[in-house]
């Protein structure tokens, strides 16, 4: 008797045969006890595997280790795609879609990164100046940065938490504005304008290239720095 290949039997167990192939194999199984037994044993194993728990108890202390790592580097990266594909730069995409959907940062054309890099450089200079001045003088209030109308929903979602905190800090800062010297207020506002310009550039770049992970990361970093400045100024306005 001619027996089907073992992988064909496996396809039968896995329900991967078409109607005609299936009927042909079932005809053979009706007459072949050895192949029928092979099917039975494979199904038994498959059943046992599917019965395994999908969850296993994670080691104690894992959560604390994760929290410690997140706290060390709280800054969030921005994935390159806009959806839910595995967000590992340069990795093979999983579960549909073209592989290598992302371009590693260093492989991206520099042209795409230039505005954001320039903004980041400018930002660093501006922040150094601002924080130095704040430390030797006093602190001052701020203005809000608001994404323009027509900003993509993804971008709004990214910016919303930053904006929420900035609004709260601005409210405190406005209430304590009189405490700060006019010169401090002027410098603070000047530096916030620089940061807001950088945010504007990053938003513009993201409207053109929403999948640009590097620019999205810079946008987040710029927001973080903006919040740092506002927090510092708020502390000074409250005399702390």
């Amino acid at each position, binding site marked *: 008797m001619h027996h089907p290949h073992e992988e064909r039997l496996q396809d039968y167990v896995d329900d991967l045969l078409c109607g005609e192939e299936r009927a042909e194999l079932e005809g053979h199984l009706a007459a072949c006890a050895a192949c029928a037994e092979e099917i039975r044993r494979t199904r038994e194993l498959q059943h046992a595997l599917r019965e395994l728990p999908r969850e296993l108890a994670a080691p104690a202390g894992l*959560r604390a280790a994760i929290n410690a790592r997140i706290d060390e580097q709280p800054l969030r990266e921005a994935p390159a795609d806009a959806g*839910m594909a595995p967000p590992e730069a340069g990795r093979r995409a999983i579960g549909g879609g073209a592989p290598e959907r992302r371009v590693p940062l260093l492989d991206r054309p520099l042209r795409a990164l230039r505005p954001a890099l320039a903004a980041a450089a400018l930002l660093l200079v501006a922040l150094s100046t601002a924080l130095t001045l704040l430390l030797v003088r006093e602190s001052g209030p701020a203005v809000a940065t608001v994404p323009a109308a027509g900003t993509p929903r993804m971008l709004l979602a990214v910016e919303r938490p930053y904006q929420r905190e900035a609004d709260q800090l601005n409210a405190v800062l406005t209430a304590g504005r009189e405490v700060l010297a006019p010169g401090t207020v002027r410098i603070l506002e000047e530096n916030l304008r620089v940061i807001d310009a950088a945010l504007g550039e990053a938003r513009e770049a993201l409207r053109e290239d929403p999948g640009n992970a590097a620019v999205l990361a810079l946008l987040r970093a710029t927001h973080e720095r903006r919040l740092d400045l506002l927090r510092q100024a708020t502390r000074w306005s409250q005399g702390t």
Partner: protein
Amino acid sequence: MEADIETLAARAAAGDRPAFDALYERCVGRVYAICLRMSADAGEAERLTQDVFVRVWRKLGSFRAESRFTTWLHRLAVNEVLQSRRSDQRRLRRVEPTDDEVLLRAPGRAEVPGLRLDLERAIAQLPPGARHVLVLFDIEGYSQEEIGRMLGIAVGTVKAQLHRARRLLRARLERPEA
């Protein structure tokens, strides 16, 4: 009332750490199981699970619920294991499979039934290629096409590895001393 996972993911995506902690509690068992079964190494599985959740926190900003959060998370975990295996030279040497019953305990279960433990041990002793395919197909439920894409191999190779894995498992379970 307990928030559902998609709601928690949306809140965590907006920077809500308590929501992220709740997500961790709900999902860590599954992520750890994927990492442990695929790596067959308890220490490595712990490190990989850490990496997965740190990565999730950093990447959640893009979460837009176009697919289920858990689908994304589990694929991220699989990716993490595969990427680690590709990049980590330590993986070139044979890993020692875990045989600690505690490490294979399902949450809330006091003991591991003997047959299940034998099966887990047999899976851990499979060669890595066969083990990955078996875990992804028979336990995690991915299609052979998906697995082929994940592993960068042809569907025919997936079938061959699956057949090999099942044959080895059966041999080990039917003749434990072999």
